[in-house]
């Protein structure tokens, strides 16, 4: 059974803190993604990676960075958390062949609250 695991389901952080959101997939997928979901805005792409050590900006990369040192792991980093980064963060993965069928496999999400 395919699985995308996000390390923390719920986090509460203070403004200015550094935040790490971890994502691990066990499907040997090349592509990994970070989205955030906000009411009325749908899912918006923050960053994605199509290979180890490769990364590309999505639609809303400001205030975020990512790290992909191993194929199975994709980390989202908030260098200095701000209240407008309070959101649900969703990690996803896919293989290049699956891009044509649209199958992104999502984790369960990490709900981050920044106070």
């Amino acid at each position, binding site marked *: 059974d395919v699985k995308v695991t996000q390390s923390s389901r719920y986090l509460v952080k203070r403004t200015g803190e550094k935040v790490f959101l971890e994502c691990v997939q066990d499907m040997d997928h090349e592509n990994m993604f970070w989205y955030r979901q906000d009411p*009325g805005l*749908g899912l918006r792409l923050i960053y994605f990676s199509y290979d180890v050590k490769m990364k590309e900006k999505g639609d809303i990369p400001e205030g975020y960075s990512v790290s992909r040192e191993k194929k199975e792991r994709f980390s989202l980093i908030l260098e200095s958390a701000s209240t407008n980064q309070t959101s649900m963060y969703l990690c996803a993965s896919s293989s290049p062949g699956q891009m044509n069928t649209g199958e*992104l496999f*999502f984790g369960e999400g990490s709900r981050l609250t920044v106070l």
Partner: protein
Amino acid sequence: DQQVKQNSPSLSVQEGRISILNCDYTNSMFDYFLWYKKYPAEGPTFLISISSIKDKNEDGRFTVFLNKSAKHLSLHIVPSQPGDSAVYFCAASARSGTYKYIFGTGTRLKVLA
């Protein structure tokens, strides 16, 4: 600028009846469309897709229709079941940048028993 729009934030349907969820897009370069379903506290799961070379795709109770001239797609669920109650997202992509799926804002479907 929202390139993919789901104008109905919520929809209630009686069990056994048809649910119709709508999605409009503005970018004529989009040529691949998808629907995802999301339950609370879970990640979205892929439901069904359609390529722009087709105008209909069926998978069991789920059918997606595409009207390219109107830049409109719809998801039909027949018959609707209480377990279908979830948030549904449509998404679109252009083949040249298949990594980039633009998602709509979602429609919350409630199927009443």
